[in-house]
Structure formats: C-alpha cells, structure tokens
C-alpha cells in the first residue's frame, strides 16, 4: 500500500559537494585523467601549428622552432609530456576492461591485451625515432 504524495513526508535530497572529486583518490585520478585530454589536445595543436609554419617556408618554420625554445614553452611541453604519458598509461590499463579478445572459444588474458598495447607503443615509437634520426 503506498501513500499519495500529499500524505507522505518529504524526501531529503542531499546536494553533491562541489569538491566531491577530492573525497577519494580514485575520483581524483579520474579527474586528472580527464584533464590530461586537454594537454594531449594542446600538444597536438602545437604540432599542427608547426606543420602550418613549415608550409609557410623556411623562415617561418625556424621562427617556430626558436619559439619552442622559449622557457615558458619548454615548461608547457614538459607538463604536457607528463599528462600525455599519464593519459596513455591510464587508457592502456583500461583497454583490457573494454576489449574482450577471443581466439576461438578462448578469451585472451587481460595482461596479454595490455602487453600488446605497450608493445605497439614501443614499436611505433621506435619507427618514429628511426625516421627522425635518419
């Protein structure tokens, strides 16, 4: 038997505190992971600017490279690198949760899926390094 809304006492609805994401370490890490996407985007944007300046000729590109050596830019790139690494590693570790890889009737263990991510990362980084050095 249910009381009508006119008869029943009011429910209490708590407001979520604005600093809820500081209430435990996992919420905090989630927020940092989300924030890291901003730095990934900014880092990618700086590359796009570099490509654009390259298309404008040698002088334009050299001015861009000189700008990259400005202390403020170096600080930004350092911070962006840390966030990019965090972004990469946290998402790598979420991959086996998202992807269930099956071979026939067997499910590939999560650790192997994770290892494959790192392997491809190292291989692609190696290829890029080779291309840049040569």
């Amino acid at each position: 038997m249910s009381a009508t809304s006119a008869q029943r006492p009011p429910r209490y609805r708590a407001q979520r505190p604005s600093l809820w994401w500081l209430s435990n370490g996992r919420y905090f890490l989630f927020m940092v992971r989300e924030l890291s996407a901003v730095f990934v985007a900014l880092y990618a944007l700086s590359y796009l600017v570099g490509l654009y300046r390259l298309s404008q000729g040698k002088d334009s590109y050299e001015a861009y490279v000189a700008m990259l050596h400005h202390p403020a830019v170096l600080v930004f790139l350092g911070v962006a690198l840390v966030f990019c690494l965090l972004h990469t590693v946290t998402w790598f570790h979420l991959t086996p949760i998202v992807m269930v890889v099956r071979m026939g009737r067997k499910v590939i263990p999560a650790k192997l899926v994770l290892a494959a991510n790192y392997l491809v990362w190292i291989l692609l980084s190696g290829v890029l390094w080779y291309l840049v050095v040569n």
Partner: protein
Amino acid sequence: MKTIDITVTRYDPENKPAPYDQTYTIPYDDEMVVLDGLNYIKDHVDGSLSYRWSCRMGVCGSCGMMVNGEPKLTCAVFLKDYPQGVRVGPLDHFPVVRDLVIEMDDFMDKLRAVKPWMIREQEKPVQEGEYLQSPEELQLFRQFSMCINCALCYAACPVYAADKTFIGPAAIALAHRYDMDSREEGQDQRAEVIGSHEGIWECSFVGECSVVCPKHVDPAAAIQRSKVQLTKDHILGLLWPWGKS
C-alpha cells in the same frame, strides 16, 4: 568489553526538516559487523532508528549504506576495522525516506527498463528440449548475473549524482548480462534503452561502480563493452543496411 562510537545520520521529516547526526556508544567484539552495531542500537538503545536489512550474509542487497563515506554492505564490514569510530549514513545520490532508508523507486524503474529477461523471437516448443549453452558461453556473462541490486554502484557513480536520468551501472550491467547470453534474441530492443541519451553514452568511465561492488561484478566493463558493441552494430548497419530485417 570494548566500546565504539557509531555516528548515524538521522532524518525525521515530520519533526526536523534536515538530517542531523546522532552518536551512540555501544559495546562490541571482533565478530560484530556494522549491521550488528545498528541492530544493537535498535534493540537496546534507540528503537526509533530506521534502516533496511534482511539476510546478514551479503545476498539480499538490503543493507547498503555509506560507511565512513564509502558505499558498503553493512553486513560485510567489521566494526573492529574502525577503531576510531564509524559514521553511517544513507546511500549517496538517493532521496532519503527516514534515517538510513532510501527511496529505491527510480533504481527499480531503471532495472525494469532494460528488460532483464530472456527475449526470444519465437519460443521453441517444450518438447524440443532446453536451450543448450556451453561453459564458455556461460562465462561471457556469468559475472554480470551476480548482481544483488544493492545499489552501491549508484551511490558511487558521479555521473548518476549529476544526472538522475542516467540509467546507471547496475541496470546496464544487467542489460549486458542478457545481451551476452547465447540464448538471447532481444538485443535490438534493449539497445533502444541503453543506447539512448540516458544510457551508456552518459558514462565517462570513472570505474568506481566496479570498485565498490560487493559481488565483484564489473558494471564499468559492461558499459564500455556495450559502447563498443553498439558502435560496431551502427557502423555495420551503415555499411550493410540490408543486414537487418
């Protein structure tokens, strides 16, 4: 005998408009769980304290509460692990009816919305026997069938906290349990619900639902895997529109 302070959030809507704390000092031993502490208060100190419980063994899912700020089954956490005292409140993100009792109507509606039952396009006659399933096929959804509807995952979910229209972790995990079942043929019907604006796309993969689950269900995985499946279905539908009747 040792004593412990249990601070309980009280809510008495007929007499006080806002919740308030009340601390009880009770004797306890190493075998007592938080629920035993609440039962001691109810039986010996203050009979007006309201809360839900039933099985005392982590099966019924009734005694979920915030214990020192974390969603827990109170039958599964020991008082000895909180020697400095323990704070017990109603589950976060739900309307409070009284003291530690929350209103679960919205949660129940969401469970029902995902059609958590076997859907067949055509039932085969009983004479043809049962629908067979291999152990490997069972393993694909088994963990998602372990949910006891305790709603701890909703209390842990910041997305549900921000938007109560979100279908939420337990309901989507339940949908995934049926979607992954080899005997199931109702995935399209369920996709309309979980693929809606209030469904899987609301989830930002915080993952706390899976951390707090007392039955080791992984709702976060269910949601992300459903995203992958629905995306694949959508792309295949674009590339091969004749595929579906």
